């Protein structure tokens, strides 16, 4: 049990998917202006990543490996990801039309979020078992949500600050992202290897 907890911690904080592995930077910059939309985006992505890591493991071990067609890995993964994203989109559209509008293009773009494709591929590389894969997927996406929400909080505050004209807008956001990444390096010693 403690092994899984450690896995969760290390994927969410130590090897944070955004700030350490630099995956999923597009929604990180794009949907981080408001706290509540950032949280919704994070939750949608968490849902997609958790399902795709599980689905990808099943595809890998029950379809690709038995048939020896691992060279089709990326293609099949993308197919599965696109299906899950499409499904999420339908659910959100039905349950929260305003959120659907707010997430806009970023919702279908979860398909091309590199974290979503990257995590199953990393799992294959590490030859992880099903439970571990699922945990890595879930932990990483929780880390993604955490960072997105933290960053949105920072940006909400920056919106109030007196930023000089040279740095106003995107530049200060990038600098803040850099500082946040530095801060996350502090977690490096948290989980023993």
């Amino acid at each position, binding site marked *: 049990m403690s092994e899984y907890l450690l896995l969760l911690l290390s994927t969410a904080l130590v090897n944070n998917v955004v700030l350490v592995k630099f995956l999923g930077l597009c929604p990180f910059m794009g949907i981080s202006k408001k706290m509540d939309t950032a949280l919704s985006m994070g939750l949608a992505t968490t849902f997609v990543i958790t399902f795709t890591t599980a689905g990808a493991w099943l595809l890998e071990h029950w*379809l690709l490996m038995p*048939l020896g*067609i691992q060279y089709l890995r990326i293609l099949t993964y993308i197919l599965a990801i696109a*299906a899950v994203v499409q*499904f999420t989109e*339908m659910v959100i559209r*039905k349950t929260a039309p305003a959120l659907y*509008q*707010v997430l806009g293009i970023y919702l279908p773009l979860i398909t091309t979020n590199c974290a979503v494709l990257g995590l199953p591929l990393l799992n294959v590389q590490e030859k992880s078992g099903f439970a571990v894969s699922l945990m890595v997927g879930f932990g990483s996406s929780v880390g993604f949500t955490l960072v997105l929400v933290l960053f949105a909080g920072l940006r909400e505050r920056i919106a109030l600050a*007196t930023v000089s004209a040279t740095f106003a807008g995107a530049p200060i956001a990038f600098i803040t992202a850099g500082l946040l990444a530095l801060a996350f390096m502090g977690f490096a010693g948290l989980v023993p290897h």
Partner: protein
Amino acid sequence: MIAALTSLTILGLVLGLILGVAARVFRVEGNKLVEEIMEILPGSQCGQCGFPGCAGAAQALAAGGAPVTLCPPGGRSVVLELAAKLGKEVNLAGVKDSVPKVAEVKEELCIGCTRCFKVCPTDAIMGAAQQIHSVFRDACTACGKCEEVCPTESVKLQPIPVTLHGWYWHKPNLQVLRNIPA
């Protein structure tokens, strides 16, 4: 080769089937968003946005085909509400709401043709044939329809004069902070 083809085809078919079923289950009846936007819009069907009435504008807004600043009678507050609902960023500088207007009848020019009060979407103009018309300021949305039909240019949109009742402090503009975007 055959295995790859068949397996991918089957996979695609299965996923397609699941999505097809999901699309049925999660079908959106009408568009809730359109109704919510309709609530925000003034509903005077003035057509200044270029859409046929507020329903058309709401549909365009929901589909993302129209800017949130489309509604002149709504002014700033409608823009802000729409932006909040749709999660859009707005630059209020482009919204010419700084001088709210109402229609006013120049009595010496009015010939009592009744054209203006027939087109007024909110019944804000009172008058009868051969009588000088006048405007209820509280009901006028400054849609400008009366201005268009008036044959003698008697009805004109005029800025509402600032009174003690409506006056409020301007936003502080600090000298030191001038090089900082607001």
